[in-house]
């Protein structure tokens, strides 16, 4: 029995357009649906400001285009580019620390005259790519020295970003690197060892924290201690979500959101607007879409054909999962307030471009697979 090869050497059971365009239908449709839901919520959160929605629409257009472009690059190309991207990213981070622009008390921006961006965004992709690149040629699970090398690759950019300071992004980058290591078979006893080490280092971490970061932890532990100051955000977002109930107060009818009680309602706290106006069922819808995206990412991971793409796909999917769980956990008062937006929904930021580029990588991995003999 001979196997007929398609001209592109790709899975014949798949429909043709996904392969020609290197797109993954389940991911694409989920992402579009989440973005559409996001625009609806954003319109309300912005108090009916259509211009705000239009600007977000432009940003989404750029992000989806970026995703489409990245998806066209084959995983092999991505793998070859990885070290260069990583080195470039580290250099940019150095440049930020030396001469970056200060905005909102943090030094995060790099102005290259033709474009102004946050180099930490590059590292969101470059770090998992780099660790996966490094481990791809080794035998899994990694030994002690390989682990140490990987940890260095993660820690250097993470600390540089934490120094800016940008705790949320540093956390995301650390977890994306950690996911690569975990997927690569990080030994359980080492995992346990590092967990204990981390717990022990917590007081040390406290020592190195900025005052506002400490305040956030205190606020998290007891938001009512300062209801008009730092606790205000979390108290108001809990009121917004709680008063939304099962069905919500209706679109554009959230009093917490529309009457300005909820701070940062179109950016980091937009989840509370969703919770207030669309209720528990609205949130369930969003969670279903997010879950679809994560599960689809893990399916791509499992189907991936080599170690680099497997590790990278798994890490990108789980980082997205951490992304939305940390944001929703923070808005519902389960986690301290770290400055992370709700992916695909929150207004603004270059983060959405990076995020979609990540999905571009996932799609590339999925659609560039070679057909294997049965």
């Amino acid at each position, binding site marked *: 029995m001979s196997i007929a090869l398609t001209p592109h050497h790709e899975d014949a059971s798949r429909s043709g357009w996904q392969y020609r365009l290197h797109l993954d239908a389940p991911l694409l449709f989920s992402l579009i649906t989440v973005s559409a839901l996001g625009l609806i919520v954003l319109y309300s959160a912005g108090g009916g400001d259509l211009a705000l929605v239009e600007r977000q629409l432009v940003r989404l257009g750029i992000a989806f285009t970026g995703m489409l472009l990245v998806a066209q690059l084959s995983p092999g190309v991505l793998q070859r580019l990885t070290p260069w991207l990583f080195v470039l990213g580290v250099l940019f981070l150095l440049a930020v620390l030396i001469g970056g622009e200060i905005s909102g008390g943090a030094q995060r921006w790099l102005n290259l005259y033709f474009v102004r961006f946050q180099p930490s965004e590059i590292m969101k992709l470059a770090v998992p790519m780099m660790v996966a690149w490094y481990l791809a*040629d*080794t*035998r*899994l*699970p990694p030994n002690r020295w390989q682990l140490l090398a990987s940890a260095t690759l993660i820690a250097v950019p993470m600390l540089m970003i934490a120094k800016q300071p940008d705790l949320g992004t540093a956390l995301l980058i650390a977890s994306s690197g950690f*996911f690569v290591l*975990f*997927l*690569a*078979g990080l030994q359980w006893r080492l995992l346990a060892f590092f967990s204990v080490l981390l717990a022990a280092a917590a007081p040390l971490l406290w020592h190195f924290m900025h005052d506002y970061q400490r305040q956030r932890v205190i606020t998290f532990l007891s938001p009512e201690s300062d209801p008009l100051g730092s606790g205000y955000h979390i108290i*108001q977002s*809990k*009121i*917004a*979500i*709680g*008063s*939304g*109930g*099962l069905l919500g107060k209706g679109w554009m009818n959230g*009093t*917490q959101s529309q*009457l*300005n*009680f909820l701070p940062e309602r179109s950016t980091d706290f937009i989840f509370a607007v969703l*919770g207030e106006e669309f*209720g*528990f069922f609205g*949130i*369930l819808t969003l*969670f279903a879409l997010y*879950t679809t995206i*994560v*599960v689809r990412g*893990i399916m791509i*991971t*499992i189907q991936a054909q080599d*170690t680099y793409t*497997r*590790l990278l796909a*798994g890490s990108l999917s*789980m980082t997205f*999962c951490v992304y939305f*769980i940390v944001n*929703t*956990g923070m808005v*519902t*008062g*389960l986690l301290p307030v770290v400055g992370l937006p709700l992916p695909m929904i929150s207004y603004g930021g270059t983060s959405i471009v990076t995020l979609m580029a990540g999905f571009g990588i996932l799609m590339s991995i999925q659609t560039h697979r070679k057909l294997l003999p049965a």
Partner: protein
Amino acid sequence: MPRQITLKDHFFESRLVMNRAILLLVAGGILLVVLLARLLYLQVLAHEHFTTLSEDNRVKLQPIAPNRGLIYDRNGILLAENLPSYRLEITPEQIDDMDATLGAIEEIIEIRDIDRSRFEKLLKRKPRFEAIPLRFHLSDEEVARFSVNRHRFPGVDIAAGLSRHYPLGSLAVHALGYVGRIDERALQQLDSSNYRGTSHFGKIGIEKTYESVLHGTVGLQHVETTAQGRVIRVLSRTPPVSGRNLYLTIDSRVQAAAEEAFTGYTGSAIAIDPNNGDILAFVSQPTYDPNAFVNGIEFGDYAALRENNKQPLFNRALRGQYPPGSTIKPFVGLAGLEEGITTRHSSTYCPGFYSLPGNTRKFRDWKRTGHGTVDLNKAIVQSCDVYFYDLALSLGIDRIHDYLQNFGFGHATGIDIQGELSGLLPSRSWKRARHDQSWFPGETLITGIGQGFFLVTPIQLATATAALANGGRLLQPNIIYAEQDANSDDLLPHRPRIHDTITITEQQHWDAVIKSMTDVVHSARGTARRIGEDSPWTIAGKTGTAQVYGLKQEEKYDAESIPEELRDHALFIAFAPAEAPKIAVAVIIEHGGGGGSVAAPVARAILDGYLQGSPQ
């Protein structure tokens, strides 16, 4: 270091990554379940709690100030009203350069220092989106001038409101009082929930005493506000209940006649209807314009009022305490008759002075040559001091005190305007307590002619005169004729209140005293005969001249040679018509000189003012 060649087990590695990926997915799932549990708690279990919090956030209670009740005189003439008034307001959040804006406004509209400092105080306290008043009571011209320039001042507006106004100005101001802005000290005394929307309250006079009646009940509206407090819409409204209108017993025509008669004098006059205690005129001179106080009086103007040596702010009718002088003689005479110490026919010889047995000190009569043989009628008509020295000594201070007390001397009359003083009716026990001295007979003598320790307030003297006129009913002076609900035409009259009824031993005694008082005005020798000559009604009266300045034994009183503030007070009490009294008055003119020449004509003007207008 050359890289070690490793043999990769692709099957193993793909299984490893798959297992780990599924583990991560499960871990993510667990976190998601935790999150959902949290959301169920917030949105289902604690939903009610958070709904309440959200409503508390959104809905605020806003007060609506009630309209203050109006004040009329007994004939329905308006004495205190609420006029639409225009104020200039600035909303700070709409102003870029406050100093420049204030400067530009000042070129169009006068801004006093007091306005500016109040504005700056509020500017610091109030939220920036709330309009802050800069000027009150804009004149029509100022409103017009600003309207023309309005386009130059975004964020500056003219707002309309109601402001208390006293159309008759200073008329009866000491009874009426005035309202003023509520300050922080007042806020502690007032019912803060009912005064949430109110800016003014009664500070003095009837405006103060009847504050609770005039104020009304605050209305409330539920409004939806933003986090910054800006009102979005009104959700529900409970309208305020306007304060009740008050009708005073004062007759503004009589009041105006009285004040006119007082022109140039300092002092007080009270006119009372002896049948029910209604106060018909309430004069304390000089007066002042209450409108100046409504929105804060300019410091300089206030200082001028305070430093004026005639003390226009001093309520003489209630707080001025004067020796009653000879006006007390009818009461002492009545005491002598009723107590059986003397009779209408017994007489005393008056040589122009009186000495206590065994004492050389001479108590003079005002008439140095003496009145000769004097009975009670003559003693009252000519105001013979020696007769009353003798009668007082026979009565003794205890009986004088007890009898005069029946007429309300020594006690506040209980008029419902705050701040009344009680005067002083001396007695042995009072002197023991106050001066730790025993009572001397000489003090009894001068008490008998209304001098010495004896002090009365004009309101007391008028009340006592009314009791004399009405045959012994001591009434509580009543200043409120009726109350009226804001939305009703019905008047709810105040009932007269009788304090006490004086026991009459023999009606003839009263008739005799009143006859003597009629002779004071209408007989050829009466001390007030000048006002009786052309009077259309029979007036019963008594003059009084109260010493302010103690004369030495042989010194002669000469009005021309002593400074005005040491001259005698002129007093006069009267009621008319004597046969069926409708009005009783007490007039005290400070340093006015003679009661008959100065105080009596003022009393006549008041009597005429009332009796000419009232149906016979």
